[in-house]
């Protein structure tokens, strides 16, 4: 059973547009040896995360296709990179709420992916229970502040 299809809150056309947008936003990188946001695992998490805003995603993604049809006479995924980017820029100006939701869901899932975290030198684990270490620092740095003396204003 294909869980992505059966569980998918958006249609397969909408899924293709979403994958296309995810890869335009965050493409794979050979330099850092990391996948793009259209990687299969990441996409499946993006789709689950989009479930919470399913209606606005459906409307938003359909609008990309409708605009591609009206401007270029074809669907969004068939366009070349420059034309796709022109459409993204159009929606950045005209549908900022949808773009915010799209970016928010995509980067949230992408930067919580184990491979991406490792490539940033992060341990791929939640903060709890191990936590993190920070240097205690040297509070003698406060000496000049102490030397200056009291700065509070007397009131009564």
């Amino acid at each position, binding site marked *: 059973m294909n869980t992505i299809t059966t569980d998918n809150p958006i249609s397969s056309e909408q899924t293709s547009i979403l994958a296309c947008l995810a890869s335009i936003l965050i493409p794979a990188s050979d330099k850092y040896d990391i996948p793009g946001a259209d990687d299969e695992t990441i996409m499946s998490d993006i789709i689950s995360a989009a479930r919470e805003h399913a209606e606005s995603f459906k409307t938003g993604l359909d609008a990309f296709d409708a605009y591609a049809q009206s401007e270029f006479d074809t669907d969004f995924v068939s366009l070349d990179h420059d034309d796709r980017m022109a459409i993204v820029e159009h929606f950045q100006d005209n549908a900022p709420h949808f773009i915010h939701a799209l970016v928010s869901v995509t980067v949230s899932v992408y930067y*919580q992916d184990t491979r991406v975290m490792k490539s940033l030198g992060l341990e791929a684990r939640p903060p709890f229970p191990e936590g993190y270490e920070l240097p205690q620092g040297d509070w003698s740095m406060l000496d000049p502040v102490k030397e200056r003396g009291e700065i509070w204003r007397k009131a009564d």
Partner: protein
Amino acid sequence: MANEPVDVLIIGAGASGAAMAWSLADTRMHILCMEQGDWMNPSEYPSTGMDWESRFSSEFSISPNERKRETDYPINEKDSAIGVANFNGVGGGTILYAGHFPRFHPSDFRAKSLDDVGDDWPINYEQLEPFYNVNDRMMGVSGLSGDPAYPAKQTVMPPLPMGYSGEIMGRAFNKLGWHWWPSDVAIATTDYDGRARCINLGACSSGCAQGAKASTDVTYWPHAIRAGVELKTRCRVREITVNDDGMASGVIYYDENGDEQFQPAEVVVMACNGIGTPRILLNSTSTSFPDGLANSSGLVGKNLMFHPYANIQGVLPEETDGYRGPTLSLWSKEFYETDASRGFVRGFTLEMHRGNRVVRTALNGVMSGRIPWGEGHHDAYRRLHNHILGMSAICEDLPEEHNRVTLDPDLTDSNGIPAPKIDYTLSENSQRMLDFAVERGTELLETCGASEILVQSPIPFGGWHLLGTARMGSDPSRSVVNEWGRSHDVKNLFIIDGSIFVTSAGVNPTQTIQSLALYIADQMKQRLANLFD
């Protein structure tokens, strides 16, 4: 079955309700607290899972309108320049708060006499000081004694680690000759009162899974309950009822099944915060109180203060603490006291931020255009990741009657109780203070070596301090409660939350909210024999 009458009924189990309940417990009265939300389960807090950052914008969002838990109520904020942040549950706002825990300064109680703005408080720093000390112990405050911006005070535990970010900031402050000091924080840096020490999870504002952060569900409440206080969750109060003598007789509330109930009480204490409290008072109308309870002054809901905030960040060549550690750990009071040459009165605290979380860095970067779509995304992200340092300026908000909470004529919560509506604009004084703070913040970050400066002013979602909507004072025509929290109009009704603030100061309020609650509890205990005279 009818509920048995109680001696004291506290509504709201947040910061102030918890402190009051604990303090009154030694009277051996029958004390009941009703809270609309649930107990939290720290093992379910976001920092226990890989997707922790995503959950900041869903069920742990700071905005009740976005969070939409069953236990939340909606707030109409379309006419407010700043959106409300809160949490509804045992612990109230302290579940999500950052735990930055400054006291007021002595001058904060005297804005009218010193600067001819706002009003003076009917109490002063010295009267509150013993209660600040008790609250420090009960919440477990960490910090460093000797801050020259305050009268002498002791802290309970050592300060949070300075970290890489603190060292960079400290060097810059010293270069400029500005005041800085480790913040007082309600975060345990050693094991304390059954709580484990902070391990720098960096997720304070979505609940502390470690229990190091002092939310009142892990500080006051366990002590209060052991001392005999009863706490009932999922009870949403709709209104306070009054008897023929004009005294509060109890409350009508909805239980967990949505059924309407009545709880009789000898004394009613409101602790629902600066929005929840005026909402219930305004909804408690009767023939004796047609404009809402305790409202003969007409001031219930008015003078709402939020604290306008500016957020100023810079990109540094060297590494900062990034996502690690409690965000707020240093403060500067350099611009706290009034200096007329700056073009505004009163002042602000700079709260230093260690850095940004991983996802937050990406989201802010893309939305601000600093991280491009496509080619260049990864290089740009890496330039920002763990290289951001910043601060927020928390500016004193002055009381203005047109900034207010009213009842929305249409919007309601799931029990049909009218939702609050907020009308709030920034004053010219606030705007000038914000602009000045942004200039100073920029100067500091440039001294740190920052190449790019990112500014958000005011922070549009930053209404996390809810103050002033049922102010205290000695004149019944200019205030809602008296010098010790009792309603001028209804002698067995007390208000103890942020509503009673006269002015807001330029600091986070919770230390003062709780110390005031302890002060009021103490005043009540001293007058038990003639509390209603």
